[in-house]
């Protein structure tokens, strides 16, 4: 089972705080160079899991290995392999950006000779050149966040763990941070947690959804969509007799379900939403309807399930599952 090529390997990880189970038998593997998104509602155990991965907190049971080194047995080695940005990105208020990065670089054992050019490189990467001599306490949130990211990537560690790197940023800054994370793809393994789901979907290769201390779903966003929501949903704008239409639709796919049909608008068009479990029906539907003189079609589209839908479905399913037993698992409130 032990795979030396895995960057992060977590097996049966459990963490309890004074009788409260924050992380309950979490297992997952992250391959090298992958960007992984960690999703979950508040108090799901995301931050706790990340802290255990960095060796900051000890786990109660289970094993965590970073690049083949056990976190519990060899914390000193782990700290050299990880760049970590904690939740809320704590920074000292009374230091200048370049001073802070210099101090962090020295702590991370970058030699004096290499540190200067590396700081310049990181400032460039994170677009911090303009503020390098400013005091961190006086920077705006977006800059502070990027200083935190700059610190995480400073020593070029093979694994980067960031707890909510995009929290509190404006859309423009999110874009910069997203590009920054994407630029690390392939070179470093990145584990990020976030609440902003489109964000995760755009940057991450794979998503882990965690709820009440358990992994409830894992896979690429597309695979999760299929697993949790299954059917494709279509939206059709059409004019014509609804009964005739129903016959045409069922002839195409018997398992097709019409979810809702609106009343005809001023031009006699209705918007019909339906779902079908099989593959993409659009082309077949289009050729069937355009040849038929009874109908006039104005629009046909497939609405994509967002990761948000997947997230809600996955967390709801896990709640349903854990609510059933008589002793539900407590979560960190």
């Amino acid at each position, binding site marked *: 089972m032990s795979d030396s090529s895995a960057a992060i390997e977590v097996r049966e990880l459990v963490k309890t705080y004074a009788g409260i189970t924050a992380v309950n038998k979490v297992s997952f593997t992250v391959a090298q160079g992958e960007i992984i998104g960690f999703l979950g509602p508040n108090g799901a155990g995301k931050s706790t899991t990340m802290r255990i991965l960095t060796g900051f*907190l000890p786990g109660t049971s289970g094993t965590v290995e970073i690049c083949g080194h056990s976190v519990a047995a060899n914390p*000193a080695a782990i700290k050299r392999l990880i760049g*970590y940005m904690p939740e809320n990105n*704590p920074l*000292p208020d009374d230091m200048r950006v370049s001073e802070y990065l210099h101090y962090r670089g*020295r*702590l991370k054992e970058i030699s004096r000779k290499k540190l200067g050019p590396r700081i310049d490189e990181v400032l460039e990467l994170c677009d911090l050149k303009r503020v390098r001599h400013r005091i961190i306490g006086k920077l705006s949130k977006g800059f502070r966040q990027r200083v935190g990211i700059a610190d995480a990537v400073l020593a070029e560690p093979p694994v980067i763990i960031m707890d909510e790197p995009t929290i509190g940023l404006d859309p423009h800054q999110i874009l910069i941070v997203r590009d920054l994370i994407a630029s690390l793809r392939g070179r470093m393994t990145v584990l990020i947690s976030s609440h902003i789901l489109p964000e995760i979907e755009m940057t991450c290769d794979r998503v882990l959804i965690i709820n009440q201390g358990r992994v409830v779903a894992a896979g690429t966003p597309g695979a999760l969509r299929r697993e949790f929501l299954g059917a494709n949903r279509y939206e059709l704008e059409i004019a014509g007799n609804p009964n005739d239409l129903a016959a045409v639709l069922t002839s195409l796919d018997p398992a097709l379900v019409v979810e809702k049909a609106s009343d005809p608008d001023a031009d006699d068009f209705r918007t019909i939403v339906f779902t079908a479990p099989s593959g993409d029906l659009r082309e077949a539907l289009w050729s069937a309807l355009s040849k038929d003189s009874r109908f006039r079609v104005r629009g046909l589209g497939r609405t994509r399930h967002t990761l948000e839908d997947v997230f809600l479905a996955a967390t709801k399913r896990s709640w349903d599952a854990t609510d059933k037993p008589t002793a539900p698992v407590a979560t960190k409130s």
Partner: protein
Amino acid sequence: MKHFFTILSHELRMLLVSSSTYIAAVLFLTLMGFIFTGILENYSQTAEEVSPAVVFFQLFWVPVFFMVPLLTMKCISEERRLGTLETLLTSPVSTAEVVLGKYAAAYLLYVSLWAATGGFFYILTYFAPNSSFIDVGPLLGGYIYVAVSGLFFVAIGVFASSLSRNQAVAGILAFAMLFSAIIGLKFVGTLELIKADSLSPVRGLLNYTNVFRHLQDFSNGIVDTRQLLYYVSGSALALIFSILGVEAKLLHS
């Protein structure tokens, strides 16, 4: 101990840009200046048996009570409150390096502030008509005593700071601990209760820990290794407890 000097230089720099350092320095130098002037005024009126340096160092505990808390209260509690302890301890640094680096920085500052009072004696020799006012022995003894006892007092301050995330609580805790170590133990030693024969080991212990007696010995030029051991072992213990305190708080956070 690779990172000890990195942390030490960073902490010294942080102390030098922090306002509480300057408050401590101004308060300390003003107070010591007043005390020194008062002593000289006494000497100009009546003849005294001991040199001014001896009297000056007899009051060394007054500034310790506010200076040590002001210099140390921030060191660990601030890191914990801001959350920077998390970034610090997830870089390749051990808890011992962090605590020792912060301790050494606070200690260096404490000692250098005391060294600044050397200026008073310099001014005295410069203006005094003859050098009989200055007795180098007690002066040197007093400074050595301050440097040695400072090891323990600053370690107490660091320990207090490791216990709370609130700076004010850490400061008051440091004050209370210093007060009981300096005044409290001396006071208990003078209690009638202790004078019973059966309690003679306790009396011996209290006598051993009496910082005023240590000061007197140092001023008289006696450097007793037992007294040195008291301060060195006391500071080692306080630092070990601070390291354990930081780590225990992480385990139970």
